């Protein structure tokens, strides 16, 4: 079960068992829902953006250990960051998650190097790329965040 241990690293199980920033924020926080239509994972993101900064973020909903821990890690990573930094983090994270798709597609294309350091704890989710079906679990909260920022015009 070597692969499995790469997928379910201790940090991930920790964030799954003790999710950070759990709950919902009252208005004026913005509320966005994300679905993974194929497996039923749901995420409810409450997002408070003030002065171009992600002032607060909370996560509700339910899903697998990967989607829930990724949401928890995401919330911890973007909270307090500027919108620009948050968006950059989304891009880096999604780049890490897309390696597999890219190589699957065409083994000869050289993937761009990723700044793993910038990801911090999030790098623990790296093991997911070996499990392509789970990539959608890992990216659900990130896509929901992007949608929320877009809707806020932030």
């Amino acid at each position, binding site marked *: *079960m070597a*692969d*499995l241990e790469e*997928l*379910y690293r201790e940090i991930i*199980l920790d964030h799954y068992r003790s999710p950070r920033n759990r709950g919902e924020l009252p208005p004026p926080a913005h509320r966005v829902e994300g679905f993974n239509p*194929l*497996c*039923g*994972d*749901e995420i409810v993101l409450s997002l408070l953006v003030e002065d171009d900064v992600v002032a607060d973020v909370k996560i509700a909903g*339910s*899903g*697998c*250990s*990967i*989607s*829930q821990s990724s949401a928890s890690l995401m919330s911890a990573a973007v909270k307090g960051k500027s919108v620009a930094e948050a968006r950059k983090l989304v891009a880096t994270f999604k780049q890490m998650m897309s390696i597999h798709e890219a190589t699957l597609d065409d083994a000869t294309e050289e993937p761009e190097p990723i700044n793993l350091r910038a990801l911090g704890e999030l790098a623990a989710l790296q093991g997911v790329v070996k*499990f392509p079906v*789970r990539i959608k*679990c890992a990216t659900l909260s990130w896509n929901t965040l992007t949608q929320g920022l877009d809707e806020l015009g932030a």
Partner: protein
Amino acid sequence: MTTPLDVEAIRKDFPLLEREIHGRRIVFLDSGASSLPPTQVTSAMTRYYESTHANVHRGVYATAEEATARYEAARVGVGRFLGTSAGADEVVFTKNCTESFNLLAKSWGAANLTSHDAVVLTEMEHHANIVPWQQLQQQVGFELRFIPVGDDYQLDLGDLDRLLEGAKLLSVTAMSNVLGTINPLKHLAARAHGAGALIAVDGAQSVPHLPTDVVGDDLDFLCFSAHKLYGPTGIGVLWAKAEHLAAMPAFLGGGGMIKDVRLDGFTAADGTQRFEAGTPPIAEAIGIHAAVDYLQGIGIEAVREHEQALTTYAFEALEAAFGDEVRIHGPGDGPGRGGVLSLTMGDIHAHDLAQVLDQVGVCVRPGHHCAKPLMRRFGLNATARASFGIYNDRDDVDVLVEGLADASRLFG
């Protein structure tokens, strides 16, 4: 607990079962999503491609005649498997069970439903038997009513008379793909007809696992897919009484479904042809024919008996190993359920459960199984569904138990 099937011999027909996954033999418990085809099916299709292939209905040369004859013979063969000798006039080939329901809703439904009418579904339907009706409803505005599902995982028929009042159709699954519940078709057909409604049945889960008798049960429509019936992908069936087909307008438009086309309009063809626009899934029709022949060779009663015995064994094994830690969402073991076990284990998410099971070679499906209203009804987000087929045996159940024990350790 003896089984009426020689599973060891049957397994030889399924090369995929020789595969190893993570160093373990594959334990395929996902026939409810899609079954494996035996070599009898794949080689029938390959032989067809290598000896006969030609477009049907339009050629006079030898292979085109043969292809046409074999394509039409598939209708008859499938019809017989459903319990009717009228397959030639009543079996329409579609691309899958989902298209069959779309055809039903958008041809029969569009022609027969107005804003004053009602269609009765159930809370345990697959999206294939919900969304097409909702799409039509957006256009026409009829009422959709749902037979509720009780805490015993059975349809609650207490209010059926009221639900059927003024309804033109009852469309119901023969067997729930989530719960395993088998519904009383003959009874439901009689109730529907008594109220002046027709009955359509989702046979996706029942046709491969239970005897089907469209005539004896007095059904009007039946939809299912070949790929859950040990047949190929790319083909489904809408069976309908010929008198209904005769009165239904065309669905998809194009070649093959017309009598005439002018620049200012077209005239549709008669019979099954009206509903088969364009080049049909010819090799796939050969494939579904081979699949029903294969199942008929084994005997569908024997299949049912085997899968019921296996289900009993699984109930016992899971109870013995996990007690309350593992829940089976669906009716208790017995003749009222099929070999579909929707599992949850404590708080572990179904995705994680399935992932861990994969490590011991076990294939189960996590998720909402395209039945979100039913999942909501039971407050479920996802289950891990193990479903049995003719190639499964008690060893498979034992590996499932082993994998669940691994999950319990990892997430416990």
